[in-house]
């Protein structure tokens, strides 16, 4: 039993790391723009297709694919914000949220139109798991975990150490004060959406590397990502990461005790429990 528990824990950390990047993107966008961007699932899928084209069609290495995923999703996310969502902003956050849901459907169907419904796999051999005593783990999953951690570290460095990152945090904290200091909130908003969407694109690619991609790849994880972000405290960057790991681990541990079909219910019970005790989420500073 202990072995099963340990294995489920390892599996949970891995699936948590896959959720973490989109959750980070979602939370960052919420922090600065103050609306839940429901198109992140579709943006993750778009990024994954970008990576797939580079890797499977053009035959370039996975690393180039990951970079491409970031670029595709970031550009698409920023274009949608500039072209559509920003204009809806006058109607309030709810209007933007609904608009983003609609955009998600548009993106998904454009991808379906361009690439078809079929599963697409990356040009990557599938390796058997490595066994450490009672625990087994896949080399690809270790890679994914490392990439996810690396991207998170880079994001932290960007936010903490660069002037742009500092401006982003300033706008998230207090947009009016930031404007007085000469920071243009609109530029920062666009930039945040680009970075957040890019993170989703990389997250989608990692999921695709672990499984395969189809137009629904991102839509399937949307609820879990949302749960992770809410759990961690909407708008909190470290919170999103913590939330993703908690949700990932909770979902895997469920399998041991309950029928696996209750997985989603479990994530929502976890949210309910946390929010009852701490309405701001695990690491949120204020109730969002």
């Amino acid at each position, binding site marked *: 039993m202990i072995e*099963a528990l340990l*294995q*489920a824990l390892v*599996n*949970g950390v*891995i*699936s948590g790391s*896959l959720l973490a990047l989109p959750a980070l993107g979602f939370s960052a966008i919420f922090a600065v723009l103050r609306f839940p961007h429901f198109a992140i699932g579709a943006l993750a899928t778009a990024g994954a297709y970008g990576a797939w084209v580079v890797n499977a069609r053009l035959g370039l290495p996975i690393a180039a694919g990951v970079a491409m995923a970031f670029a595709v999703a970031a550009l698409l996310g920023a274009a949608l914000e500039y072209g559509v969502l920003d204009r809806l902003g006058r109607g309030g956050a709810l209007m933007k949220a609904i608009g983003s849901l609609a955009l998600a459907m548009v993106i998904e*169907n454009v991808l*379906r139109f361009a690439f078809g*419904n*079929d*599963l*697409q*796999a990356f040009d990557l*051999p*599938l*390796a*058997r*798991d490595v066994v450490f005593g009672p625990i*087994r783990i*896949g080399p690809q999953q270790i890679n994914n975990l490392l990439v996810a951690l690396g991207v998170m570290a880079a994001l932290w460095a960007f936010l903490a150490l660069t002037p742009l990152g500092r401006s982003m945090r300033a706008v998230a904290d207090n947009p009016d004060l930031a404007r007085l200091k000469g920071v243009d909130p609109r530029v920062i908003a666009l930039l945040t959406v680009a970075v957040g969407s890019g993170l989703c694109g990389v997250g989608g690619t990692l*999921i695709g590397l*672990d*499984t*395969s991609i*189809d*137009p*629904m790849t991102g839509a*399937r*994880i949307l609820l879990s990502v949302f749960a992770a972000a809410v759990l961690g405290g909407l708008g909190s960057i470290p919170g999103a990461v913590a939330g993703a790991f908690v949700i990932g681990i909770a*979902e*895997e541990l469920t*399998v*041991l005790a309950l*029928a*696996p*079909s209750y*997985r*989603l219910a479990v994530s929502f019970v976890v949210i309910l429990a946390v929010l009852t005790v701490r309405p701001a989420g695990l690491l949120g500073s204020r109730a969002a």
Partner: protein
Amino acid sequence: MTELSRRQMLAAAALAAGTLAMPRILRAQGNGPIKLGTLTPLTGSGGSYGPSMAEVVNRAAAEINAAGGVRGRQIQIISEDDQTNPEAGLRAARKLIDVDGVSAIIGTWASSVTTAVAPVCWQSGVFLATVSGADSITQLPHGGFIIRTQPNTSLQGTKFGEFSAELGAKTVAFMSPQTPFTEAQFKFITEAVTKAGGKTSSLIYDDKKTTLRTEVDQVLRGRPDVIVMGGYTNDTAVLVRDLYRASFRGKLIGFGYAVNKQLVDALPADVSEGIYTLSPSTAAGSGAYAHVAKLLGVDAPDTYSAQCFDHLSLIAMAMAAGQGTTGAVIKDNVRKVAQGGGERVTEAVEGLNLITAGTKVDYDGASGPCDFTEVGDITDAKFRYEQVKAGKVTLLKIA
């Protein structure tokens, strides 16, 4: 812009409401074309089958129209997407029935969609021809408005169980997402395996998960020698990868609609190597099947396209035989053209000519003999046993 007075507005609204309240039949099927709907999964897990299902119906209808239609009336096909999703399917069915006024719906694929759509159909007197397998579907109180050309789950489950035993399995694990046929499927697998002296276990997983590692671990602790996979393509791809990673060395059996070319193409060859699949066999080699191949311009059309071709042929001939175009006419006459002896026909144009000339016909279709029981199940079905070898799905036997 003209201003409408309140009175005019009310009058117009009353008129519009009155039109809607008229018996549906008046609006639907006057002297224009006969309207039939296809409701197939153009997106979602059935998305790789739905487009050709709708396409073959359209092309077969065009053939019938070119040959003079059904007793001189042209057929118009309206195609909708059920998104492999019950809610979306129901919305689309409502649109087909209430707005377009179709007298029959062809093609619902996923059992969950068919289950959602069926009551609306029989309540509106619309005939439903489906390719779904769940036992529960034909047990609904549909009053004859449903037929299906897909063998039901009890039959499929038994075949899966018997095939597992044939492969020498002592311990069979069943892994599946929750579907309307999961329970019956497992029950009949267990029956067949127990009869052969083996035992079974089952695990229901969430088909939206990106990894099934913990589920796989859970199942492998029971040391199964055969795992039967009950999911659709996308989740089965995840499952097969995770079984490979976990170094499972036993045998895998899946549904033919899940372990298909698409899945095999998406996985490295050594991962999919050796997976067995089972699917209802088409009547490959028959005239009707060759006809479907020609209509679609492919070598080997899948069973669902073949079944939809049969649906349209049967519906067209039933309308001709009953000299009417409503769902009730189709319901009352479909068995008269499908079975019970008579001139053997394999497509609608030929059948329609014979029926107009007063000859009794017996349709043998692209998916099989197409004979139906009282509740709408097919009476006879053959299965296709295949195995993935070196990245190709190859035929083992048809039995």
